């Protein structure tokens, strides 16, 4: 019984995946390019003309929202400070502490 259910689920999943694979567009030919026109190729605000960067995500991360990245880096720094504090080597003085 459990095997039958598993095979049935596998078949249904396979059918859906095959349908998706058949309907997939050809590689390298995007269906919609409006977003590229707006974010990349726009002559005033696009990232190619504005930042001279092809990668819009990097432009957002390190330029438009650079302060956000600074916060992330600071969080990492704080995490390392915490680890160094917790795992630091304690020096015994006089032998009465513990």
């Amino acid at each position, binding site marked *: 019984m459990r095997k039958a259910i598993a095979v049935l689920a596998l078949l249904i999943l396979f059918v859906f995946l095959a349908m998706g694979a058949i309907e997939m567009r050809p590689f390298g030919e995007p269906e919609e390019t409006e977003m590229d026109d707006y974010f990349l190729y726009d002559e005033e605000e696009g990232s190619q003309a*504005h*930042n*001279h*960067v092809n990668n819009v995500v*990097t432009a957002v991360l*390190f330029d438009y929202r650079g*302060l956000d990245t*600074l916060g992330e880096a600071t969080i990492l720094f704080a995490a390392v400070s915490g680890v160094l504090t917790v795992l630091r080597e304690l020096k015994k003085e006089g032998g009465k502490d513990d």
Partner: protein
Amino acid sequence: MNWKMSRIVRTVTNFLIVPIIVFGIYLVLHGHLTPGGGFQGGAVIASSTALLIIAYGTLGEHEKDLSSVEALGLTLFILIALLGIGTTMFYNFLAGAGGVFGGTIPEGINPGYINTGGTIPLMNIFVGLEVTAALSLIIWMMSKETFVINSEKKEVKD
């Protein structure tokens, strides 16, 4: 810790460590062209530290040097951000200005040129430096066993 993994694992580690580090450096340096960037590349390079520690057991006692590398990366990142303060913080003052990372890219689809992007590749490099040092330092500190036993120096019997 005085144990190592077997000679097979150590030999394979010696071979694998170079492609891992090269791939991490590639991710950092091409952050403005391809998916990736400072954080991802730094994490990849830090994974090589984890591999070394797993294979060899320990890396020695020099982990405090990584702390200064991390602080250096963060400081340079903030410095680059502050250099554009004439307009606003994180202003991309190098983009399209010529010189280092100041090239312009043609409109439309292009293969990607590494000498573009202004401050973005520089920030990628510094963030990559910081993330590499930070993650390696965390792995390194947690792999040492002297901290489990509070203050007394444990004599390792092997």
